[in-house]
């Protein structure tokens, strides 16, 4: 397939964009990466995602697909001949989708809570919530991986991609607060999983460098804190 049939509108720091990039890599799909500065948002982005005006947006033969997990499922279906991203069994697919939704709806807001925390007390509370979530994900990992390296078994799959998109941000958050979110005591499985995930061929060239992301995160933190302060007034 010609490279310009597939375009991805995104930005390198975004964990959601990363999900789409990893999925495309799993399927060995060549694509054009259109970097957004988001200030201002490009005409193409506004036209392709008029409802949310957010990244990532996948453009496949000029048809836009929005929302990162929907994009990952689309990639799995549109390039069905490549390695599978979702498991084949309907129940295993349900489990993967359930935990991916959990990551987005419960766990990620708690992560944002750490970065946007106004003071130490708020930060500690958010760290507590994130840790609880990671313990749940560790249990899920033990059950789902059945002793193999990834949620998807021997190869990375949907849930690895859904959760793994946040790995660089987890590392940045750990560095910032001098905490170990993934650790031997509470999340030994996920700790090993993280190393393997980061080294996976579909991941290693697109996973943001922790140091570079830490620098970038200062901008995000300022925005999150300003938003939290405005909300508190």
């Amino acid at each position, binding site marked *: 397939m010609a490279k310009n049939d597939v375009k991805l509108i995104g930005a390198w720091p975004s964990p959601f964009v990363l999900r789409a990039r990893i999925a495309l890599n799993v399927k060995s799909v060549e694509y054009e990466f259109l970097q957004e500065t988001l200030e201002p948002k490009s005409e193409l982005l506004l036209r392709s995602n*008029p*409802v949310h005006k957010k990244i990532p947006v996948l453009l*496949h033969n000029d*048809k836009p*697909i*929005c*929302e990162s997990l*929907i*994009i990952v*499922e*689309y990639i799995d*279906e*549109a390039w069905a001949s490549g390695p599978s991203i979702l498991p084949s069994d*309907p*129940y295993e*697919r*349900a*489990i993967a*989708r*359930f935990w991916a*939704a*959990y990551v987005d709806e419960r766990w990620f807001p708690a992560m944002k809570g750490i970065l946007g925390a106004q003071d130490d007390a708020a930060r500690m509370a958010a760290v507590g919530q994130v840790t609880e979530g990671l313990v*749940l994900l560790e249990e899920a990992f033990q059950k789902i991986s059945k002793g193999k390296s990834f949620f998807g078994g021997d190869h990375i799959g949907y849930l690895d991609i859904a959760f793994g998109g946040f790995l660089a941000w987890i590392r940045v958050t750990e560095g910032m607060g001098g905490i170990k979110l993934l650790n031997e005591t509470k999340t030994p499985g996920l700790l090993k999983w993280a190393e393997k995930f980061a080294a996976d061929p579909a991941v290693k060239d697109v996973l943001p460098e922790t140091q570079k992301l830490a620098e970038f995160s200062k901008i995000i933190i300022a925005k999150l804190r300003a938003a939290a302060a405005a909300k508190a007034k």
Partner: protein
Amino acid sequence: MAWSLSRSELHRLFRLQLYVHIYSRNKKMSRSKTNMEEVKVIGFWASPYVYRVTWALNLKGVKYEYQEEDIFNKSGLLLQYNPVHKKVPVFVHGGKLIAESSVILEYIEETWPQNPLLPTDPHARAMARFWTKFRDDKKPDLYGFFKRAGEEQIQAAKEAQECLKILEEHGLQEKKFFDGDKIGMTDLSMGWLAFWFEAMEEAAGVQVLEANSFPRLHAWIRNFKEVPVVKENHPDQTRLLAYFKWLREMYTKPATT
């Protein structure tokens, strides 16, 4: 030309045919056994999320057992079945537990492919999932007017209308149903608009989904209510109104010092 086989070749062929017959019979049995395994829905009568699931099962002709759960007094069973979210619906199939309505719908679609709820084209499937997610993500904006009063309610009603405008103009567009000529997964996810929304508006004393401003959504509601599985199975409007009036009182009660 005649093809003659020796006695031993005939025996081998017969054995092979027998094995193939047994294998395919077992495969058919296990497939139908999976489909025939016990199906149960744990729900709450006033939940639109539960109805998504029961409508889907009815559309596909799947028999199920329904168990009512009082969400204001959660049972040990619910807490055991859905420890992460402690919510309904919970779907049980042959002992396997699944929670989250959109996850359950995808499972139902994959397990019972008859009367499909999703199109085959990957892009069309992505769009169907997009609109279900939009509706679920925008729940705070869509429901906000119900929980508020006075100036805050007027503002919240405007926010709800912005979301509804997007649904009308980008989601539904000129189609009869969100999923085209027949209802699909998206329509089931929008079912809350058909019965619940008007009860919430009446209980909250505010009109949000005005017919003049939202002609297409109003037409969709009329068409949706006429679909046989919906007509035969929906919450009782009187009971729903009483429920929302009671909920509204709880939300707008002044805080006790």
